[in-house]
């Protein structure tokens, strides 16, 4: 029983941590490709109706093309309104 104290404590801590942080994470569903070739994820944005390129300002930089997935073959289209991603 004494030998299982450390694992038990670690498991309890992990359970607590996972439930307290689970809801604070952003559910990524739209992406932009930043100039440093790194994808940046953010919650899904409403680009409106239309066939114009959906672009977004991310952290004050951009505008960048918005993609549905981390794949440059999946550009998002919309009304052409510039989206601001904080």
């Amino acid at each position, binding site marked *: 029983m004494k*030998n*299982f104290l*450390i*694992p038990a*404590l*670690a*498991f309890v*801590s*992990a*359970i607590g*941590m*996972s*439930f307290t*942080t*689970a809801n604070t*994470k*952003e*559910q*990524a*569903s739209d*992406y932009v*490709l930043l100039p440093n*070739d*790194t*994808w*940046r*994820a953010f919650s899904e944005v409403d680009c409106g109706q239309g066939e114009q390129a959906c672009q977004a300002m991310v952290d004050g930089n951009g505008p960048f093309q918005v993609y549905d*997935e*981390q*794949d*440059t073959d999946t550009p998002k289209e919309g009304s052409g309104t510039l989206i601001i991603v904080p």
Partner: protein
Amino acid sequence: MNQHIKTGHRAKSKYEKTLSASISKALLFYFILLLSYAALSKITEGNSLYISLINAPLFLSTELAGFGQWFIPITELVLAISISFKTTRKIGYIGVALLFILLSVYAGWITWFLPNKPCSCGGLISLLSWKQHVVFNLLNLILSLIGWYLTQRPIKANPTTI
């Protein structure tokens, strides 16, 4: 005829024993916390791992990504449980080391060979860059090997004459 006394390991001092026991316990707590938190957060986050796997440059099909969505956290949980028990700790640490070798190779490949890096969105350490991921994984690999080494029971001095 010369007589030799053969011993497996030199006798450890009390200080060395206490130190290695403390390091061993700290590593045990750290790895169980790390692995079980990683597994549980993947499970509680819903389909974010599935989305990450689909978007990862591994060219996974939807079926494989669906399989990985459960296989990865279950593997992490199994490893956390295996190092919890004395009897399976040694093999558990080998599994942990293999996991971090795979993760280091994956993060290294993304860092140095991939033109467009996927975001490390969600997950345990989403704030780290890919280079930091590599360092973090290598550090964990070294720590798991230390844990494995400390788990090996020292051979008791068994004087035998030749």
